[in-house]
């Protein structure tokens, strides 16, 4: 028994010793490569790797090559905690990209804060992340902004009464709360409100319940998978309404899955112009590295996060977390990435303007 434990520990350290080679500048990433968020995790990883490749092609950081050490978190908070502990202690990395999904992110926040490790998020939107601490940054705007965005969209389209449905997880609930407050404050009415469970294949009862309220518009704050299933099944059941959605379902995959049922959906998303040189060069690089693959959800944010990190590492006076943190704040000021202005405010949040998207002729386009 004892022998077993000690030999395992010995092996652990033996292997880890040779892990980060000299001459590398490494950062860590806790990424959902498996589990229920793996659908997204792979895309995040590809986007990050794309950015890393470009950084290395441009000569790396201070002459060293740049490397991202990925740790899988199995899409759970337990996995996230294990992964970040490993990255901090074994790999001794001063900067870590945090896990997707706000609940997993919130689980690692205190650890990063306690260890004074810079933690970056590219897609975790929960409003409470702003309060995580001074070492936590995100290149993705908080829910607060997005909820307001959807409420404004609904109003601007002239809908006074809507049915609200949202995916029953941290992200969906948080977003729905903001939307509700904003929408009702502006005189809107929510006829019925129903969460739908994450990851199911049959939402017909939920749709029926929405249908029984005869709404003109349904605000559906959900992910791709759930969103596509709902759109498809609603179409089959003859529910014809205006669907209003958030940013998490803005993906070509939604159209793949839901087909013509997705036609006419309108949604909001943290906007960034696709006409900027930054975006175009990202798009070109993506197509070169991953030919035939569509750009993943939040891929641009992950890309920006890595690019911004590289800039900070380059300008940081040392490789300590505190210096990186300082540098990050400094280089972010006025930094225009693929997804727009990434200047961090005092909470480590970025601002964003919300655009509107729609699906027309099987393609995502801007709604005007």
């Amino acid at each position, binding site marked *: 028994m004892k022998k077993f434990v000690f030999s395992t520990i010995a092996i652990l350290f033996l292997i880890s010793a040779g892990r980060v080679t000299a001459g590398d500048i490494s950062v860590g990433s806790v990424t959902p490569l498996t589990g229920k968020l*793996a659908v997204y995790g792979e895309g995040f990883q590809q986007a990050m790797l794309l950015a890393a490749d470009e950084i290395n092609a441009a000569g790396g950081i201070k002459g060293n090559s740049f490397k991202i050490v990925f740790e*899988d978190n199995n899409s759970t908070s337990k996995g996230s905690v294990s992964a970040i502990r490993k990255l901090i202690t074994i790999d001794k990395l001063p900067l870590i990209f945090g896990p997707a999904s706000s609940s997993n992110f919130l689980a690692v926040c205190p650890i990063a804060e306690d260890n004074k490790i810079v933690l970056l998020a590219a897609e975790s939107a929960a409003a409470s992340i702003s309060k995580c601490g001074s070492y936590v940054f995100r290149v993705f705007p908080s829910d607060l902004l997005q909820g307001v965005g959807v409420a404004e969209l609904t109003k601007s389209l002239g809908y006074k009464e809507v049915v609200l449905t949202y995916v029953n997880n941290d992200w969906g609930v948080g977003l729905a709360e903001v939307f509700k407050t904003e929408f009702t404050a502006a005189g809107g009415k929510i006829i019925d409100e129903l969460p739908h469970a994450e990851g199911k294949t049959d939402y017909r009862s939920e749709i029926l319940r929405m249908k029984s309220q005869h709404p003109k518009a349904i605000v559906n704050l959900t992910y791709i998978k759930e969103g596509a299933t709902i759109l498809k099944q609603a179409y089959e059941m003859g529910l014809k309404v205006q669907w209003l959605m958030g940013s998490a379902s803005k993906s070509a995959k939604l159209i793949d899955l839901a087909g013509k049922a997705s036609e006419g959906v309108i949604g909001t998303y943290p906007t960034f112009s696709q006409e900027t040189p930054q975006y175009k060069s990202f798009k070109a690089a993506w197509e070169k590295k991953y030919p035939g693959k569509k750009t993943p959800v939040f891929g641009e944010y992950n890309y920006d996060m890595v690019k911004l990190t590289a800039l900070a590492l380059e300008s940081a006076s040392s490789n300590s977390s505190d210096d990186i943190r300082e540098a990050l704040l400094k280089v972010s000021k006025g930094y225009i990435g693929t997804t727009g202005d990434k200047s961090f405010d005092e909470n480590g949040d970025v601002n964003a303007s919300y655009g509107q998207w729609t699906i027309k002729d099987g393609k995502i386009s801007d709604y005007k």
Partner: protein
Amino acid sequence: MDYLYHILIIALIYSIFAQSLNLELGFTGLYNFGHIAFFGIGAYASALLSLSGVPIPVAALIAIGLAGIAGAFLALPTLRLSGDYFGIATLVFAEMVHLLFLNERDITRGPMGLPNIPRPDWIGTGVTSLPLLLAVVFFAAAVTFILLRIITNSPFGRSLKVIREDEFVAQALGKNTFLIKTKAIVTGSAFAGLAGVLWAHYITYISPSDFTLQETILVLLCIVLGGKGTHWGPVIGAFSIIFFAEFIRFIPIPSEYTRFVAPLQGMIYGFILVIMMLKRPQGLISESRGQRTTNA
């Protein structure tokens, strides 16, 4: 070192959890597939109470008590059911508890989870707290081990085994099997609650997705691998599984293949379960057959 502390803490918490299930599954032969519910109840109760200002030791004790009471709540109606039926009832019970965590948003904050769960001041929250935390968790695991050892080596433990081997015989010998099994479940649930309490205050953030059937399967694996119905079995099982899971992180795998790691790991776990049942159902350590099992 922090990482090692972390793994040890997790492994110790799981060893408590595994030991508590072993009392039911290994010693009493109760197929409880809903054991994670009590882990969750312990974690949530202690977290909610301490967040609302109850001193942590008090919150922890109440949480352990609540997990035990919840155990009685499960046991009283379901123990009349025979083996497989009981298994399903417990599975369903755990799913219901999970749904309550998820949907009773006014109490549990639902899927948002409970962040910033406090720790006692003398432990603190910083990195320096890890060795102390490890000491606390080790103490809890040791106490669990000793208490469960006393319980299972006693005439009570023997009657648990009598029930496991043949419930009709137990009844014919005048044992109130219902009461004894209820006691086993209440005790097991309380210790699962203890594991949950430790978990909540260690991770400091809990959400319903931490308490799913997946975890029950993991802890089942710990028991089966180590040896069910033994004292050291679940402990060894928990350490093996947790260390194995962490060990995989250190196998250098090119990033394009990392997506295969977890499925392969899952397949290995499944394979181990099957092979253990085929080749060595008693686990790494086998329960001593015969001999004298009591020394109380």
